[in-house]
């Protein structure tokens, strides 16, 4: 696994260079959203909106009505909390093709509760016409733009920034689950930054004799229901979801709804923020403290299977590619 530095910056340049109707909209977080290079190269297509998020979303609804393609960049949390009414009425109802690029999803920022989008999926999943995408590695960050641009309606994307690991070698595929491991004991469903954690855990579990089917979801709405149920039918014990989000309304709830409606009768453990706010601290610390990490997943697997393993933090560290992560700083503002 290797880290890619600022994959979004180059991806957006490459994407927008060839598409003159694409506009880059920013709310005073231009370099924080890695679009300063685009601003300098295409100032005529860069719209600085300052701190006017409510106006910005309604305005983008108007631009999209006229056939332009605005890509709005700011921190994820500022795209839906303050301007939710504008998102509903100026964009979602009219099914405007506005692309909302949300940076620093969940607890990937030390900015504390004001900066941590921990309920965005829950809020936006309930909004008709929305499509929700979440990137989990550098390849998905590099290839999500064309996927988002092809959607006939508004799209919200959780984008990773800075040094992003490359986990996948195939591009973002709309509404498809990635199958990352096969096993018959249980199904692990992850999205975004939790996928890397689960990859480490599932490798350690395999060595301990536990068979894990690991699915990575990058399209959260719509959701690949049939593929999920197919995988579910092949495991003995049930499902564990792990998400960079509150367990209320996000990936765990998606799984719960599908399992209940299908009458699967299998158990489900939802890992993620347990209906709590986090606070401002480093990402590794928050992932450990709030149980979004590989060790928490291993313990949940033991609970689900009823069998303990001897996997501990040290064993998981051994799976982790230390040289990759030693170069990574805690995400700054």
């Amino acid at each position, binding site marked *: 696994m290797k880290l890619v530095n600022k994959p979004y910056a180059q991806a957006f340049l490459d994407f927008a260079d060839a598409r003159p109707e694409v506009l880059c909209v920013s709310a005073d977080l231009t370099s924080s959203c890695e679009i300063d290079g685009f601003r300098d190269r295409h100032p005529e297509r860069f*719209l*600085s*909106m*300052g701190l*006017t998020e*409510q*106006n*910005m*979303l*309604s*305005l*983008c*609804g*108007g*631009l*999209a*009505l*006229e*056939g*332009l393609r605005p890509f709005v960049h700011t921190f994820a949390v500022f795209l839906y909390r303050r301007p939710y*009414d*504008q998102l*509903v*009425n*100026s964009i979602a*109802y*009219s*099914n405007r093709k506005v692309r909302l690029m949300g940076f620093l999803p969940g607890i990937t920022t030390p900015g504390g509760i004001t900066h941590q989008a921990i309920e965005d999926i829950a809020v936006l999943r309930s909004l*008709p*016409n929305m499509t929700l995408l979440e990137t989990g590695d550098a390849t998905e960050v590099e290839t999500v733009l064309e996927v988002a641009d092809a*959607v*006939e*309606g508004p799209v919200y994307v959780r984008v990773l920034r800075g040094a992003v690991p490359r986990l996948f070698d195939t591009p973002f595929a709309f509404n498809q689950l990635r199958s990352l491991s096969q096993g018959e004991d249980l199904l692990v469903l992850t999205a975004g930054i939790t996928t890397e954690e689960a990859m480490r855990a599932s490798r350690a579990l395999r060595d301990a004799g536990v068979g894990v089917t690991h699915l990575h979801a990058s399209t959260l709405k719509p959701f690949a229901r049939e593929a999920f149920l197919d995988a579910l039918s092949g495991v003995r014990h049930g499902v564990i979801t792990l998400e960079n989000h509150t367990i209320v309304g996000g990936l765990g709830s998606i799984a719960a709804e599908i399992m209940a409606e299908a009458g699967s009768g299998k158990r489900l453990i939802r890992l993620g923020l347990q209906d709590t706010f986090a606070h401002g601290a480093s990402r590794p610390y928050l992932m450990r403290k709030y149980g979004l990490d590989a060790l928490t997943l291993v313990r949940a697997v033991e609970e689900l299977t009823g069998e303990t393993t001897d996997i501990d933090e040290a064993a998981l560290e051994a799976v982790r590619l230390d040289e990759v992560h030693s170069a990574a700083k805690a995400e700054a503002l």
Partner: protein
Amino acid sequence: MWQQETRRVAHGIRCRVFEHTIRNNGGYLSQACSSADFLATLYTRTLHLGPAIAPPVPRPFAGPPAADNPHAFTGAGYHGEQTPAWDRFIISPAHYALVIYAALIETGRMDAQGLELFNRDGESVEMIGAEHSPGMEVMTGSLGQGLSQALGIAMARQRRGDRGRVWVFLSDGELQEGQTWEAFQVMDHYHLDNIAIIVDVNGQQCDGTVASTLRLGDIAHRLRAFGAEVHDIDGHDIEAIDQAGRSRPEHRPLVLLANTDPCRGMDYLNRRRPKMHYVRFLKPGEKEELEREIRNELYPEGQGDGT
């Protein structure tokens, strides 16, 4: 003389909204009184619109816009075809819908039958206008969003080099919304001059007067400080409105503050002050008295018979 036609349209708007309010046991009557004259001037003089291209009798609601709903439509066609030269007209206070429908009828853009569909289940002629309602093309019922959406349209038109302007109708209460001032800052920053705004300064909002609810102070001063060219005019003086609407400032938006009387043409409504937002009939005989008194005002020659 254009004034004669404009006054006919203005009177027609008041009469239609009045008759409708009586038939429906309530309605947005004061909005017709305050806005009839400037809306009539806009539709007959100021706005550069093509002839209506929408069905004279509005279609039923065809479902919300969605990727899998090819039947969804907007009410923009009542304002004519959208071409580079023609204006657009965005109605931000969607609760003026009844007044707008009346204006569309008086100017031959909608059939009078259309008003019979007002607030009827399954129809598009809704009480609070939505984008599918006649004359509407964006969602504005949540106040303060119409101006920003119009701004997006105007910026797109500026990039295309369209000659036509984007006109926006605002209510004064909307100046309390923070988003309105965000929009004015952005217009100023981008020197946007293809947008023109007319505000119904009737001093009324749902709770009562603007002054008692949340006072706006010197609106013209505030708007000028935000970079707009402001014309502070009598919103019932059709010649002043016509004149101000001809101004085409460079590098800044045009704002017409139409100072209006929410009882103009229906003096009897003064008795209902300070709550003018929506006329309801609660006491016995209340409706009959209002109808008799206002009918005498609207039809001094006695031709008003409610039909």
